[in-house]
């Protein structure tokens, strides 16, 4: 592994050359659309091909061990790789096409899985061959996740699973699902839960997409009726699933802090410029709506503060990418900033920011509406804004746990 400045620069040159050879120039500028799953044209085919090449190189999962198909890179090398991907306008489509595989499931299998489980599951994630969903929430177990009721019963050579999950992202297109199940109904609620990895291709599982306020259906209801899970697909010990599941949630939060490397982040159009186009300016070049101007400045300062905090926490970790307790503050700040931006964008566009579809609206205006609506989920999924505040109060500030446990 390259750690000296010279070795890192040599790696940078290698990464740059490889990206130049393999990233199709036609995908430049399409990152956001590809990552949002909005490309249904030739670009999608090209993006999938690019993803396969990235996966074969191991660079879709750069820091995972090479023996399981990962890149085997150090954190510093992975940072360099991300910088080079960003600089080339490139991105990592496998973050989308593996569902929760790269961001959450894979790191948890690497930490808790048996050798056989790692060999079975990790290489397929690295190559982007498998889409993972997660069965956590239930109709009566949302923020109070530990009260989940889906049960798994021992049938000798396998587990029989019965119950209902909800808000299962991409369950209808997933190949595998990581499911929290109750394996000891008599134990205290956190002590009777296990984590099962379940093959979705079986008759005992039915998925029904849920249409959301923004019109899309990214989440499903998932029904398990005598579904089958193999005995050797339990991740972690029997009844230790709460610990495994919570660890996975830490990876989830870490993926929702607003850090964009490899996600095709890139510079977005300045909201100030958008506002000037819709609202106009006074003689001094100031936005004509003084009240909006003040709130827009406040929002952009908040967004900048969030970006600087991401950078500072990364610098403090000095390339040691541990899952930090700071993820909760970053996640809350990220969702607040994104939701503020969506609300301001709509306000700036006025009646043009209220179109649903069809003529009379620019594409950018229609996207703004859908972004505004779908973005309301950001402060709910992955542990709501309030749950993150519980975590900050308890784990960072050391305040005593209150009766509503986080």
């Amino acid at each position, binding site marked *: 592994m390259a750690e000296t400045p010279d070795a890192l620069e040599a790696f940078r040159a290698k990464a740059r050359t490889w990206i130049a050879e393999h990233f199709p120039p036609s995908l430049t500028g399409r990152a956001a659309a590809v990552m949002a799953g909005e490309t249904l044209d030739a670009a999608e085919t090209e993006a999938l091909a690019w993803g396969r090449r990235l996966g074969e190189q191991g660079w879709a999962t750069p820091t995972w061990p090479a023996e399981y198909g990962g890149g085997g890179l150090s954190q510093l090398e992975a940072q360099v790789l991300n910088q080079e991907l960003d600089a080339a306008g490139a991105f990592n489509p496998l973050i989308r096409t593996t569902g929760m595989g790269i961001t959450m499931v894979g790191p948890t299998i690497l930490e808790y899985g048996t050798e056989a489980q790692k060999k079975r599951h990790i290489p397929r994630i690295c190559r982007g061959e498998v889409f993972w969903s997660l069965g956590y929430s239930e109709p009566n177990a949302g923020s109070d996740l530990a009260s989940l009721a889906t049960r798994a019963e021992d049938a000798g050579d396998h587990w029989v699973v019965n119950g209902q999950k909800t808000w299962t992202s991409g369950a209808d297109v997933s190949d595998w699902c990581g499911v929290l199940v109750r394996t000891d109904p008599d134990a205290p609620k956190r002590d009777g839960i296990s984590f099962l990895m379940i093959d979705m291709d079986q008759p005992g599982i039915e998925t029904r997409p849920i249409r959301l306020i923004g019109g899309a259906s990214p989440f499903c209801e998932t029904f398990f009726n005598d579904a089958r899970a193999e005995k050797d697909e339990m991740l972690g010990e029997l009844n230790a699933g709460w610990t495994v599941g919570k660890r996975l949630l830490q990876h989830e939060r870490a993926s929702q802090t607003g850090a964009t490397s490899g996600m095709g982040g890139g510079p977005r159009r*300045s909201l*100030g*410029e958008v*506002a*000037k186009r819709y609202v106009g*300016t006074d003689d001094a*070049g*100031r*936005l004509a709506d003084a009240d909006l*101007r*003040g709130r*827009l*400045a*406040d929002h*952009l*300062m*908040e967004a*900048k*503060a*969030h970006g*600087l*905090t991401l*950078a*500072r926490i990364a*610098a*403090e970790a000095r390339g040691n990418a541990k899952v930090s307790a*700071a993820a909760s*503050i970053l996640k*809350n*700040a990220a969702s607040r900033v994104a939701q503020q931006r969506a609300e301001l964008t709509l306000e700036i566009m006025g009646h043009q920011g209220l179109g649903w579809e069809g003529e009379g609206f620019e594409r950018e205006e229609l996207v703004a509406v859908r972004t505004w609506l779908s973005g309301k989920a950001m402060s709910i999924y992955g542990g709501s804004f*309030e749950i*993150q*505040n*519980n975590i*900050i*109060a*308890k784990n*960072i*500030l*050391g*305040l*005593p*746990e*209150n009766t*509503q446990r986080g």
Partner: protein
Amino acid sequence: MAALTEEQALLQEQARAWARDEAPVARFREMRDSGNPLGFDKATWGSIAEMGWAGTMVPETFGGAEMGALTFGVLLEELGRQLTASPLLASGLVAASALELGGTDAQKEQWLPQIAEGAAIVTLAVDEGPRHAPTQLATRAEAKGSGFRITGDKSHVLEGMAADVFLVAAATDDGTGLFLVPADAPGLTRTRLATTDSRGYANIAFAGVEVAADAQLTGGPGADVLEATLDRARAGLAAEMLGTASQAFDMTLDYLKNRVQFGQVIGSFQALGHRAAALYTEMEMTRSCVEAALQAIDAGADDVPRLCSLAKAKAGDFLHHMSNELIQIHGGIGMTDEFDAGLYLKRARALEATFGNQAFHRDRYATLSGF
């Protein structure tokens, strides 16, 4: 602060221990109760000068330590925690910056070593009314003979009662100029202001005060120097404000963990836990902005003005919020003069208003962002 060098981390520890043991808020309270007209304790200032902190930004050739803005920020943050009163910011950061950025060789040689030693207190006289408006100056410096004649009224001048020399911002025929004016110059009068934060502000009247040509910084126009100096002042103030607010946060968190009502510590109540979490989040975001501004100054980066406005506004918002929550969460005890919360609240509003409040810097941020 984070990502500090070993030297900075050491200095931070030293400053925190010194302020806690030698210049705690109890000393500030004694100074306030004594009716001290200077607004700081001379012995405390003497110790600060002895440690060389007033020369943190001063080049080594002029007797300073030349350690940069981030290092100065570390010191100001730690002193801000204890409300330690001294001319360190006004003289060591603001005036020293103006001289370093715009002083002629002779001016630097005369004043920078004295500032670094704490032998002279120099302060910037810029504001003229209730609000910070450094580009609209009514004070005029008219050419007279080979020198200038300064007429106008400056208000809320930091350390105005203790200053030996004023750095006066005044309009000239060539735009804004900066002039070194000794406090004992004929025609200069100062009036002490008794303010809620008990510091040493004064209104300074210039009734045709005459200075020689070599009293002018840069030997000509000084608007750019004034702006760059004010940005350093804002970043330094933001660091002090971060310290003041961080201490208020620690006091509040401590109270949440110890105050028992309804048979349990009040920090176990979710309504309070979430407020603490929100304040903590704000504190972390503020720290990022303050450090970024100070580091940008040290690096001579292009975006210094925007980052300094960001830091001052964010620190202002956080300190405002935090000082109110400090009182509210402490309840009745927070309302008593005997408890320190009131001292933090009063200091908070003064810091917010100095060199541009949140509204000023939001407006400036918008302008600098092109809308």
